């Protein structure tokens, strides 16, 4: 599917490689070199075969192996998404529970409205805002995520703060709402009512009584959110110049580097699919009633 989709992208790498002023002969030569003169079915079979073997072909620009290239970038993105998740997950669970367990009360209104306000800002505005607040005005943090040459982002943790924060904040906004709606429902159930009548209140009520019931539905949605984090970092990575897979995808699309687009899309799909499946499994494990309908 990824292959088919990218095939449909108008234009081809020929112009990107050969340059706008190339002659027809030059273009034909490039086309032949890239193997674009053969029919799509053959190319698909080759590509799919290669993909199965872990070989995603060679990028048009620069001619590096796509697999190698993704291996360069993916860890950075995973790190970013992982850190963002590590911040966003507990925060959205905590906030979502706080709001959901007291649905309709003042705490809920405050959290929900606040979360909505943040969620209401497009990601690049949020990024710009954080940038302005934490970096440009105060100079506390670097504005651009320049990874030390030859090192990993972890060698300069300060460059991770802003991208992670941006991703996490928008993740929290979505996550909180999902957890809230799940836990509000549970909070209204007779068993939570019974727990209240036993004098259980506050964090204990939320964590021990509301959460277990809310986790299963929330896990589903949070799984999707995770997938979106990995792939959706395009904007954040562009704004901060963070060398991740999202930035790479954007550039590859702009350069019509089809093998690279295909490779990245495939890897993104795989990562997202994995998280979604994981979430499904988690949801199943967390819901005792699954599989044994009453």
């Amino acid at each position: 599917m990824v292959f088919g989709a990218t095939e449909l992208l108008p234009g081809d790498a020929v112009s990107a490689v050969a340059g706008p002023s190339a002659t027809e002969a030059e273009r034909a030569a490039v086309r032949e070199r890239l193997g674009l003169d053969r029919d799509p079915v053959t190319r698909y079979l080759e590509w799919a075969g290669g993909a199965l073997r872990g070989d995603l072909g060679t990028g048009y620009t620069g001619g590096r192996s796509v697999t190698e290239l993704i291996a360069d970038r993916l860890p950075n993105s995973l790190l970013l998404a992982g850190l963002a998740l590590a911040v966003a997950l507990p925060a959205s669970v905590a906030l979502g529970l706080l709001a959901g367990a007291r649905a309709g009360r003042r705490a809920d209104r405050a959290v929900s409205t606040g979360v909505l306000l943040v969620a209401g800002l497009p990601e690049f505005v949020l990024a710009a805002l954080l940038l302005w607040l934490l970096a440009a005005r105060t100079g506390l943090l670097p504005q651009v995520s320049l990874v030390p040459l030859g090192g990993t982002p972890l060698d300069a943790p300060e460059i991770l703060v802003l991208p992670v924060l941006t991703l996490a904040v928008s993740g929290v906004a979505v996550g909180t709402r999902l957890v809230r709606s799940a836990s509000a429902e549970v909070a209204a159930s007779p068993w939570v009512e019974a727990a209240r009548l036993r004098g259980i209140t506050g964090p204990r009520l939320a964590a021990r009584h509301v959460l277990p019931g809310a986790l299963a539905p929330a896990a589903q949605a949070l799984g999707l959110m995770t997938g979106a984090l990995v792939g959706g970092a395009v904007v954040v990575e562009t704004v901060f110049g963070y060398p991740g897979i999202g930035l790479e995808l954007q550039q590859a699309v702009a350069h019509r580097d089809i093998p690279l687009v295909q490779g990245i899309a495939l890897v993104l799909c795989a990562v997202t699919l994995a998280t979604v499946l994981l979430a499904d499994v988690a949801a199943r494990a967390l819901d005792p009633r699954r599989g044994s309908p009453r």
Partner: protein
Amino acid sequence: MSVPTTATALAEVDDLVVTRRTDGEPVLDGVSLTLRAGEVLAMVGRSGSGKTTLALSLLGRVREGLTPRSGTVRVAGLDPFTSEGRSRVRRRLVGFLGQDPASALNPARRLGSTLHEAAALTAPRGRGAAGRAERERRVRAALTEMDLPTDPGFLRRYPHQVSGGQAQRVALAVATIGEPRLLVLDEPTSGLDPSLAEDLAARLSARHRRAGGAMLLVSHDRLLTETLADRTLGIEGGRLGPPRRPAPSRRPPPRRRAEPASSGAPLLELAHLRATHGRHVAVEGVSLTVAAGGCTALVGPSGAGKSTVARCLLGLHGSWSGELRLAGSALPTDFRRRTGEQRRALQLVAQDSVGALNPRESVRGALLRPLAASGNGSEEEAARLLERVGLSPALLGRLPHDLSGGERQRVNLARALAARPRVLLCDEVTSALDGETRDAVLELLRELRHAQGLGVLLITHDWEVRATADQVVTLVDGRMVDAEREAAEDGASR
């Protein structure tokens, strides 16, 4: 205004008025009550008379849709309607068991963790290993007291993996584990067979009195109130008064011989039922019949497998085998493969009356749907059905959670009847009803049996209900115990 607290008064309710928010109707109409330490007070009254409302007010709780208008409540001198008072009252002073204990257990938590938490919450602040050992001991003790298994396997189960009566006893254990000074129990034994109930009650009260605790017991089970209570108060229309009926005798009433309704061919035949819950065989080798116009009682101790049998008959149970015939023609084991006609022919009134009602559907909607399916979807018909089960047509606009426990149960019954079944399966349909209302319901069933040839399968613990059956099948541990002899003993054999 407040009444001076005497040293002995543990709980005091003074002139409490609770009204419905929508129409201002009082549900409690100037109730005053004093409960002394060490006293057991029983509260009896018709379904919908306000018992649960009063019991909850001791915990500072008023259900949504009701509002307290005036009056005061004090428990050990604290006002449970203030937030500090509430948390202290609920945490340390009062243990509460609600009317629908099955739905009070968190379906996502294991029984063990609920019990441990209750033990920990009320334990003297012991932390660490010693604390844990103490908690375990108390949990075990509570389970033993409730006649429940104490093996870790049982504690690891989820609420939906135990029977209705077992769930009720777990909930009772949760309420009593902290040995609170005041126990408020709302129909604590409705799902238990009488001998177990009596046994349990005796143990409970012995321990409780020893510890000097007071108890407010809401029950229509006269046997129970008689055994336990020092004092019985009646409640009627939200006002307290002396109990309406004099305390009845301790003995179960003489079993009335049920007149055989019809002796035609059995309407419903079940043979060689075998049902499993995972690897555990819940029911095996059960055969029973229900005659047209007849009534078969399915009895047995809690956890015997009665509800499982009912669910199998309906085709809801996932893994079962056996032969099932309705009026001579075979019924598929899975309801999905039954025709609409076949499905309508069998109707279940489920044991868990909360779970069986759509929380967002009014009584009217719940009744009109099956009525429409059976061809008479008028509002009058719905109102008539409600009246037949002893409910006011005013209830039509209500949502399930605005109903009292008994009312809910009867709405369930009305809904099942609305589908015009040929066989009605009643799983503890009278457990939350007072004697009077129960008799009315039984009378209704009898009438339907005669008039329409309705076959009834009654799952019950109640001797009096059982007595209306013309056949009795007893289950113990998932197996039939000599049904013939039992039946003969009852004098109900054909």
